[in-house]
């Protein structure tokens, strides 16, 4: 087994995940990429191999198929040093609130799946005695708003899960990073008109993540301004908040 460090990236077709893959590969890591319909990763795998002359292996993984998680983890060439979960589903609030089965999909994709997978990985890291886990959550989880509370509440649950997990595994040398990206220009937000000063590029997110893992940070807002925006949003009294629209 080679000594090169490895990162497992789950939801590897995500634009943020891809930027993270490039960043870690450029820092000498080998890549384990997991995604559903993983054959769509083939060109990405070739590109990463050419760019970075590193090992890249693709795996099939659907974050909703919980029962497969243990087999999936056993099938990895080896337990990685770092894991990132970038799986997410924004959904469409207006439609989803009418059809609760849609809501279920958003909730499971953003909360249950990622939490269960990272929980199981944390258990294995704990036994081994080291490892870093990165969960991409969202500022939408800081306070529920009419325009995206289904997604937001699932992210909120995910943030809480990561917080508890961090607390639990702290002593065993496993580090857990919660990333709150703010707006990022990706497939997910393609159709939205985002204000450019609040919107990060995926590469910026990747650089921040790499630095934060290195210095064992716990929670990061990719653009610091988001911390203050959310501080303000969270401090609005509920009786006013419920009348506001955003």
């Amino acid at each position, binding site marked *: 087994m080679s000594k090169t460090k490895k990162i497992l990236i789950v939801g590897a077709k995500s*634009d943020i995940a891809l930027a993270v893959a490039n960043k870690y590969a450029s820092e000498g890591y080998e890549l384990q990429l997991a995604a559903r319909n993983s054959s769509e990763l083939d060109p990405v795998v*070739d590109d990463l191999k050419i760019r970075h002359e590193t090992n890249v292996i693709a795996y099939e993984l659907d974050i909703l198929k919980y029962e497969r998680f243990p087999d999936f983890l056993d099938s990895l060439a080896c337990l990685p040093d770092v894991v990132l979960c970038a799986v997410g589903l924004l959904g469409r609030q207006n439609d989803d609130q009418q059809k609760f089965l849609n809501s279920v999909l958003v909730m499971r994709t953003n909360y249950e799946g990622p939490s269960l997978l990272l929980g199981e990985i944390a258990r294995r890291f704990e036994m081994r005695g080291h490892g870093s886990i990165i969960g991409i959550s969202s500022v939408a989880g800081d306070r529920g708003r009419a325009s995206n509370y289904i997604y937001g509440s699932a992210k909120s649950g995910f943030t809480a899960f990561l917080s508890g997990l961090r607390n639990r595994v702290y002593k065993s040398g496993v580090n857990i990073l919660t990333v709150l990206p703010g707006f990022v220009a990706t497939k997910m937000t393609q159709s939205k008109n985002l204000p450019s000063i609040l919107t990060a590029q995926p590469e910026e997110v990747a650089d921040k993540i790499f630095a934060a893992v290195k210095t064992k940070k716990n929670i990061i807002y990719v653009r610091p301004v988001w911390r203050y925006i959310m501080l303000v949003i969270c401090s609005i009294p509920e009786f006013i908040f419920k009348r506001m629209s955003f």
Partner: protein
Amino acid sequence: MTELFGWGRFPKIQSRELTPKSEAELAAILRNSKSYIARGNGRAYGDSAINKNLTVTMTHINRFLRWNAKSGELIAESGVLIADIIDTFLPRGWFPYVTPGTKFVSLGGAIACDVHGKNHHKDGSFGNFVNWIDLINEDNQVLRCSRSENADLFRWTIGGMGLTGVILRCSIQLKKIESGWIKQRSVINNNLSESLKSFHENKDAQYSVAWIDCLATGKSFGRSILLLGEHAKKDEVKQKSAVFPKVRNQKFSLFFDAPGFLLNNFTVSAFNKLYFNFSKFMPSSCVDWDTYFYPLDSIGNWNRIYGKEGFFQFQCVLPEEVSLEGYTKLFFAIQKKSSGSFLAVLKDFGSGNGYVSFPRKGLTLALDFKASKINIALGKQLTDMVNDFGGTIYLAKDAIMEDVQYNPTFSKDEFLKYRNRFIKSEQSIRVKL
């Protein structure tokens, strides 16, 4: 709608822009559109890569597909930038055969404009190192074009300004080099005829480019400094330096339009004087690839120095026989309007690829003008003069030419046979190409 413009920030045009992330997305976009143009990294100066109705930006279709480490053949999607290629392959000893003066151009843009570097007299243009192109045609099918397959379409696509189809991917040949350093030496030329002669005398140099002072008068009329370069061998690199140095850090970046008065005649001529006095003392030296090929790339958005109005570049090539007479007249015209130019560059072209491609035997001159009314009129006047001398204008730089002024040396009818009807740029509409 977004406001789109080229590197010159003139003209600015409201356009619908889509940036597909995959070939499938691209196909879906093209299938439903009857008027569009492909856009690379927007480094053409004017409106070559803008269509009001739909501009399809290719920069996210940018994967490396295959690399042959033995032969140096690279297969990549058209949105890959030359900067990416250098970043990835220079540390392994490979460099593009031909590169323009900025590394932030896409493969699609480099092929569509058949870009040239400082080595055209030796190696020709970018198209010479393209093995094949996968082109999306009018029926939205992908056609492989090369010198042996769909050969005519291949030739009209190189330099075809994106009008024959959307370039999806291509195979190009990289050049093996021993180091990332260039040995540079300079030759001072005191007047125009010396300037022209010194190109002739230095035909063997791998790279050559002259900075020319188009404001000097009298005995110094047409004075220039010719910079010559050769790739340094491994053992010629200074001991403490990396054999393949990394890209320079960005020095600073302009986030706003600089006030126009910064660049009036006075500052321009002062700049020219300073430059000339300084370079007289410039010793032969070893320069890193980034400083040598891309001197301005380390200043982000330097195009904003020309202020809100933006600027345009005038670039022509004149047939060799008329170089002296032609450039004398052009410089006189420029001096008369006294609209001095920040950057005036002279390069030597060998014979060209023919077809739509710009480079052809002769010397090429490029200079920037602030996009003021006076300068636009001057630019048009210079274009007429170029036409009279049997020369032609580089479409990648043009933003002002009128249709009657576009003087292609190829048969438009022949081009029409390979031109995609759905593809139009604001420029192709303007010059009726």
